[in-house]
């Protein structure tokens, strides 16, 4: 396949300039994720108000897929309720495992090419797992293994 199918411009751009890449001073939920296979590490900061994600940010180091995915995730989860966040993660997982883009969700669909690289699915979900753990108040480190 053409590499630009995997590394769509949304991914390259979010990797070069990740959004919400900072510590969040107002965070009341923090969770980390790591991929022991490659050493990628990510920390997600969430300011939870009631059941709504008022603000969210992340820090870490990893491949373009994991960094861009976390960056897009923070943009999409800000302002969402827990239920909405989980539904969105479900849709994202469908996109990257089935490889079917969602016409109505171009940012998440940028990751559809990942399905041709099964080893990279863990990279794409690392930040999401950490975020879901954070909102559930689980202080454990998410791991892709």
């Amino acid at each position, binding site marked *: *396949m053409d*590499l630009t199918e*995997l*590394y769509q411009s949304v991914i*390259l751009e979010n*990797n*070069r300039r990740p959004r919400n890449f900072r510590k969040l001073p107002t965070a009341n939920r923090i969770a980390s994720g790591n991929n022991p*296979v*490659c*050493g*990628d*590490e990510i920390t997600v900061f969430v300011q939870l108000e009631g059941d709504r994600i008022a603000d969210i940010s992340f820090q870490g*180091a*990893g*491949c*373009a*897929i994991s*960094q861009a995915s976390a960056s897009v995730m923070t943009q999409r989860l800000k302002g969402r309720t827990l239920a909405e966040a989980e539904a969105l993660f479900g849709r994202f997982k469908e996109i990257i495992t089935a490889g079917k883009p969602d016409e109505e969700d171009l940012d998440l669909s940028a990751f559809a090419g990942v399905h041709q*690289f099964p080893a*990279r699915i863990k*990279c794409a979900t690392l930040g999401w797992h950490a975020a879901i753990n954070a909102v559930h108040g689980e202080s454990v480190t998410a791991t892709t293994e």
Partner: protein
Amino acid sequence: MNPLIVASTPDWAALRADFPILDQTVHGRPLIYLDNGATTQKPRAVIDALVRYYEHDNANVHRGVHELSYRATTAYEAARTRAAQFIRAGAPEEIIFTRGTTEGLNLIAYTFTSRLKPGDAILVTEMEHHSNLVPWQLLAARTGAKLLFVPVTGDDGLLDLSHLDELLASNVKLFAFPQISNSLGTINPVAELCTRARSHGVITVVDAAQSAGHLPIDVQSLDCDFLAFSGHKMAGPTGIGVLYGRRALLEAMDPFQGGGEMIASVQFDHSTWNKVPHKFEAGTPDIAGAVGLHAALDYLDDIGRPAIAAHDAQLARDAYARLAEVPGIRLFGPPGERGGLVSFGLAGAHPHDVVTFADQQGIALRGGHHCTQPLWRKLGIAATTRASFYLYNTPAEVDRLIAVIREAAKFFG
């Protein structure tokens, strides 16, 4: 022996044709296999030896009295004799067949449980592969001994030996280190390290996983106590490896695993142990693996290890020098003499992305922590990309590697 003195130059192009797997395209491009530090490809001679063994001689070893068992036993023990000769061990009894380097190192760590006590120390280096670190961590946890480390100088990947004698004098019982670092390419001064350890009465363990298929090894002149390597990293099959141990030490050691073959006599409540090396080889061994390894050792020595070492190191030095000119590159390991691999970081491009990018061009690289996580943590980088070379790699493949790394830098930068 100086690995740079080469009697006659082998015909590398003809040798490359001995490896059937290399004749294929990957993602539409000719395969360029540069992941030899993980495992090497196998020549026709090794594949044929495996097939021949299974088609003609297969039986269990040592216990049967029929013809096939005799042939299998003869072939298995001939492989042991050949392995002893390959590293100039004093006797075949000093060769234990294992699953690979990892099992060899674990065997030593396990059997030394009864020989260490609280207050003792185990010395390793900061450049250990996890397989030459975690078994010692487990041994330390079992015995109350502590782990000490020989530091690595920095990105140039050398051992800082300035305090080695102080370290060795700190109740150290075992000193384990790699001959060639799998993630830096550093060639460590094994003979010097063994001599200095011996002067403190310290037992030495050499991880030769990255060196045995490249450099000539003479355990008697290195004067090491143990040395472990894997068949699959030296043109042989997976599942077979060698642990060399000094005979007196092996005889004094407890067994590793219990089972058939390793016993002399078994009662309901106790047993006595077979002689070395059989004391350490419980159960049916990888007989075909040993036969395949024998063929690999013959294959390597037909070419000549000094020539192979010079060839691989030349490719690595070339790659190192030309990668140094790529903007944003951070190279690891010594700039001068090195083993046949190069490890690097590229600003803005994560190793896994670089490896995926190269794979789409038919180039097999490795990206990640290469099982040396503590080392990278110390050097402040999570992962690197590694290109590792073997006898079938060519200067043209290095050209292609450099071009693709430059493209990747542009693509992700």
